């Protein structure tokens, strides 16, 4: 690899355990191997490990719910250290929701416990003959059948049962619920009760492998390359991380954004028909109201100084959900709240609990419910179909719909149980014309809490995201929010393209390390990220090298998509953003312009050094990034599934 020669690595690294496990679920065989120091340096961890292994080892064109898919679990070098938010892990596979690069990141105690158990990466293959869970208990690694004990249980119950079985309340457990077991394409994985690897259907991949849960615990310590210097640096970063850079996440939590995005007309309401809501203006659905009336506690993931997790509680006296406690962030306030026209907080909390416990992604779940509400309002689905009414602002019926969608029961389950894209196709098959128009997804992944009508830069950023509609793979929403460019215009395509690329690759480093996006503001520069990497691992690192690797990793996962049949048309926001204008608010009368959008998309491809027409990386670019092994292997094989 041409660029790699600049940095020589020590034989034995700190931080990384360099231990890879290969688990063949069909045969039960578990193999251990050593991850090369060069591999660590070049693919960093998390996202980078996933991208490289999926490119090298996944047969293109396979059915993601078949035994041919592989599931990669990976951490970077930081878990168990006190680098803020270091306890994160990532999952990577071909996504059953998008048919493309699937990835999902979560935290809680899993990263740290797994690090102490000594693993750095696990690759699962095949399908177990019966339901099993996988245990990494220091050097004891084994599969255990669980058809009678765990299968059918919710995620919370599974976690509690395993903790009791091990007599260890600190056992880290990643589990799927009934939704993952039935391979719902929007199924998530839950750990530590309130943390989810939610996006792109990784829970369905576990379900397809008969893998109910993964449990970790370990006793191995973590040494760092430069202990005294690292301690001093960590102290400084912890200090900054408890200051203004993270106050939004700590104080009101992410729901603070309900008001600020509403003020900008960017808060999606009524399934992205509008970008504002009077219930937000009236302080009913805001972060302030949520915290004053409902939040009882904020809790943290392991080694996180921020504690963004806001736990809301329904009072004991509530008739339907007494003493319900659930974990709220802005995405759920949007998906089951503003997007469904629902201003009843306990209904939102109940829907969150169902998603987290029974195992679907709360964003995809809520956005799918919002699609159903709009279809009901439009008369494309009826009370006769559902068995009940589902207008905007439904409460008990929204909860009922959500439960059925998760469990795959009734009309709601049959049609909507796999997300918006399949719901649209299934309804159109039933003769409900144009039903797909109401599914708010990109590449099949449901959209997060940003309305694109007046966000021309993020319209591109969210659309080019390799895992589908996502604000955590591409942070270009800040370009529109902060007014870096005219958010209603389509000028400066190349300049915008460069900024969008910068946001995307910056996030790639964060997802490789893996640390939390909420700490992106605590580092003075990318050079400081390189510095902490060096202090922990002992690998000499520079900002330039790190950012080049980020670009290579983003490119490689893009190439994965191309190999699976991606075309330029896949980088496109939903039609609704082009055809239905807001009727009020700052983006009143605004919808996206196709020609303008395509111009900006071309600008992004150009900034990337990709073919401007097709959006495919050129051989020159691939060579420059050390991705020579990709050249000649970009033809789609088997197409999208």
């Amino acid at each position: 690899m041409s660029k790699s020669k600049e940095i020589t690595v020590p034989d034995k690294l700190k931080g990384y355990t360099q231990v890879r496990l290969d688990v063949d679920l069909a045969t039960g065989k578990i193999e251990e191997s050593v991850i090369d120091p060069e591999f660590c340096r070049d693919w960093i961890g998390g996202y980078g490990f996933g991208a490289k292994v999926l490119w090298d080892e996944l047969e293109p064109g396979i059915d993601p719910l078949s035994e041919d898919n592989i599931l990669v679990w990976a951490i970077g070098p930081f878990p168990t250290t006190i680098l803020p938010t270091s306890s994160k892990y990532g999952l990577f596979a071909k996504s059953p929701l998008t048919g493309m690069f699937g990835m999902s990141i979560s935290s809680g105690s899993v990263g740290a416990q797994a690090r102490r158990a000594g693993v750095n990466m696990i690759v699962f293959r095949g399908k177990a003959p019966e339901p099993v869970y996988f245990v990494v208990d220091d050097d004891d690694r084994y599969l255990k059948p669980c058809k009678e004990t765990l299968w059918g249980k919710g995620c919370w119950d599974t976690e509690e049962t395993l903790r009791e079985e091990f007599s260890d309340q600190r056992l880290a457990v990643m589990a799927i619920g009934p939704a993952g077991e039935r391979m719902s394409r929007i199924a998530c994985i839950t750990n530590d009760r309130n943390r989810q690897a939610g996006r792109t259907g990784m829970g369905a991949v576990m379900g397809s492998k008969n893998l109910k849960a993964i449990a970790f615990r370990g006793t191995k310590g973590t040494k760092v390359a430069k202990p005294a210097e690292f301690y001093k640096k960590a102290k400084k970063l912890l200090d900054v991380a408890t200051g203004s850079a993270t106050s939004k996440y700590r104080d009101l939590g992410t729901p603070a954004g309900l008001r600020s995005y509403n003020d900008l007309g960017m808060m999606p309401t009524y399934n992205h028909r509008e970008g504002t809501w009077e219930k937000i203006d009236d302080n009913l659905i805001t972060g302030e109201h949520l915290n004053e009336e409902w939040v009882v506690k904020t809790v943290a993931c392991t080694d996180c100084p921020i504690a963004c997790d806001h736990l809301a509680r329904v009072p004991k006296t509530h008739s339907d959900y007494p003493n319900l406690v659930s974990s709220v962030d802005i995405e759920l306030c949007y998906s089951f709240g503003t997007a469904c026209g629902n201003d009843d907080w306990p209904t939102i909390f109940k829907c969150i609990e169902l998603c987290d416990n029974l195992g679907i992604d709360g964003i995809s779940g809520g956005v799918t419910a919002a699609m159903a509400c709009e279809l009901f309002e439009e008369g494309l689905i009826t009370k006769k179909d559902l068995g009940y009414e589902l207008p905007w602002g439904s409460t008990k019926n929204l909860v009922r719909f959500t439960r059925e969608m998760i469990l795959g029961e009734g009309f709601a389950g049959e049609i909507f149980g796999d997300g918006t894209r399949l719901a649209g196709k299934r309804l159109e098959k039933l003769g409900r014309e144009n039903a797909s128009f109401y599914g708010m997804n990109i590449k099949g992944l449901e959209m997060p809490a940003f309305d694109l009508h007046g966000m021309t830069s993020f319209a591109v950023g969210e659309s080019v995201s390799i895992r589908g509609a996502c604000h955590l793979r591409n942070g270009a929403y800040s370009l529109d929010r902060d007014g870096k460019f005219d958010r209603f215009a389509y000028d400066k395509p190349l300049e915008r393209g460069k900024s969008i690329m910068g946001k995307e690759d910056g996030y790639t480093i964060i997802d490789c390390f893996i640390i939390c996006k909420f700490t992106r503001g605590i580092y003075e520069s990318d050079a400081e990220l390189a510095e902490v990497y060096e202090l922990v691992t002992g690998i000499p690192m520079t900002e330039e090298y790190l950012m080049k690797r980020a670009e290579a990793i983003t490119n490689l996962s893009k190439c994965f998509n191309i190999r699976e049949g991606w075309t330029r048309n896949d980088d496109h926001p939903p039609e609704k953003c082009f055809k239905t204008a807001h009727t009020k608010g700052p983006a009143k009368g605004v919808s996206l312009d196709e020609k303008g959008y395509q111009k900006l998309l071309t600008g992004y491809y150009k900034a990337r050094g990709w073919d401007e027409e097709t959006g495919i990386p050129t051989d020159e670019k691939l060579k420059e990034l050390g991705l020579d092994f990709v050249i000649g292997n970009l033809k789609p094989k088997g197409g999208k599934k």
Partner: protein
Amino acid sequence: MSSTKRRSRLHKCIVVDPDECTGCEICESVCSFVHDAEFNPINTRIHRVRIEPVFNIAMACQKCEDAPCIRACPEKALDKDEEGSITVDEDKCNGCGFCIRACDFGVISLHLDNQKALVCDLCENMREEFIDPEVGKPEPQCIEMCPREAIALKTVEQIGEETRIDAVKRLFGEMLSEYET
């Protein structure tokens, strides 16, 4: 804080506010690191407890006046220093774990590597390389690093007084508010 002794006694210990504690475990990681130069929360002297769904706290040695752990130790390995901290004579400690059984708060454990009793020393024995040069002496690092300032070192007298003042404010808030400016 003042270390004035009352009748030559000093009873101060680590106190954690459950309202502020988020359960982040940073105190545990820091405790192991400053003593061993290795992050391993199992070798901690302060222990996080999370009871789902909302309760979080961390617990460390309460520096009991008549400490059951000292009495329980068959090897007479445990003692108390001038500051009131429990000391462990590692030559005598044989890892039998009787102190763990005797402790009412569950805040003693055995170090994974040497199987000697681990108990909060208020960082008296922290490694020199981690001492902040500006401070120049050991100080409890869990307090220093807790992101929520949920951990404090307090004397029992101080704890009592703070609780009393809180109670009075709660009970006589109306009367007190008349004098607020």
